[in-house]
């Protein structure tokens, strides 16, 4: 049974009782990811002595992405890929309805936002994946770099280098879109990412998945490379 939401953010601003907030696992994933991506970006820039932290941050992001992948398969209804990955035509129709002046928030991700989520997850997966095989040609290398040829390491490192701009672009788009909804359309999208309700079933499933994601990551970056 779903617990009643503490408040209906959509109602407060737009007059439509459209949704309760996101479940806790999704909110935790979102804000932790945002913090770690920022941290990774900065520690990747400021100099070699920070690369140790850059790598640790990347490992944490791997765990988060594994969790989100699993959460998208068996998680809360609104977090499941099946519920928000829509046909491109649906995304187009949604944009048209927005420009026609329709002002409402569908529950979960909207048909366009769903694709933004997929794009961000894919780019981040590419980033942590290539990071595992990258090196800085001196004292730092990803845990799997020793397993492949130098030519492959170079290729991975170069992808790791330019893909950061793909991520940056998506993040800027994301923040712009959120601002547009929040302050132009006056639809509260920030509130549901702060407050929300989580069913008991979801809490238990999320705890199990989180533990599995951490174990899988530990195996990938510590046990397997040995």
């Amino acid at each position, binding site marked *: 049974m779903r617990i009643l939401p503490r408040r209906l953010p959509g109602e407060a601003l737009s007059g439509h009782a459209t949704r309760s907030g996101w479940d806790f696992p999704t909110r935790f994933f979102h804000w932790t990811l945002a913090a770690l991506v920022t941290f990774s970006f900065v520690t990747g820039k400021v*100099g070699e002595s920070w690369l140790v932290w850059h790598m640790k941050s990347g490992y944490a992001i791997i765990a988060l992405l594994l969790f989100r992948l699993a959460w998208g398969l068996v998680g809360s209804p609104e977090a499941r890929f099946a519920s928000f990955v829509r046909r491109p035509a649906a995304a187009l129709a949604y944009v048209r309805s927005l420009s026609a002046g329709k002002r409402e928030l569908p529950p979960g991700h909207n048909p366009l936002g769903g694709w933004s989520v997929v794009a961000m997850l894919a780019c981040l997966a590419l980033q942590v994946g290539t990071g595992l095989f990258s090196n800085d040609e001196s004292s730092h290398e990803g845990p799997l770099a020793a397993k492949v040829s130098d030519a492959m390491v170079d290729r991975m490192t170069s992808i790791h280098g330019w893909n950061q701009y793909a991520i940056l672009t998506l993040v800027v788009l994301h923040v712009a879109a959120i601002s547009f909804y929040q302050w132009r359309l006056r639809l509260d999208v920030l509130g549901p990412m702060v407050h929300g309700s989580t069913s008991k079933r979801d809490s238990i499933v999320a705890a199990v998945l989180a533990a599995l994601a951490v174990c899988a990551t530990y195996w990938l970056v510590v046990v397997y490379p040995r």
Partner: protein
Amino acid sequence: MTRNKRFLALAVLGVTALAVQAQSPKPEDQIKLRKAAYDMMGYSFGGINAMAEGKRPYDKEEAARLADLLVQVSMVPRHFFGEGTDKGETRAKPEIWTHRADFDAKMDKMVSEAAKLPAVARTGDEAALKRQAKAVGEACGSCHDDFRVKR
């Protein structure tokens, strides 16, 4: 290796390096030579660093051998950043030649930190080796940050 023998080896290497510099190889050859030296530094320091990070089992003899090699090759690159070597197959930044004093200071720092490694490795003190490896790594990194083009 005894102190005298080591001193002799360093002296020979130093004289060779000077002689090589006096002959002044073509810029493209200088670039090749310094790259080769950095590769050797990567090999020798990489092995020590892997031990320090627990990625390779600690081995006192091997650490000492690699440290000796590192000391020798660490003194090579500085002689091959001559005129005209800012162009070509290199990731050396032009700042090396416009901020030469800073570059030389960072090079000195790296060489002097590397020079401490053999003695530390021979004590068999793993924690001390870890500390000194970190100091060397930071010395390498501070120069790369300012003077090497990122990939």
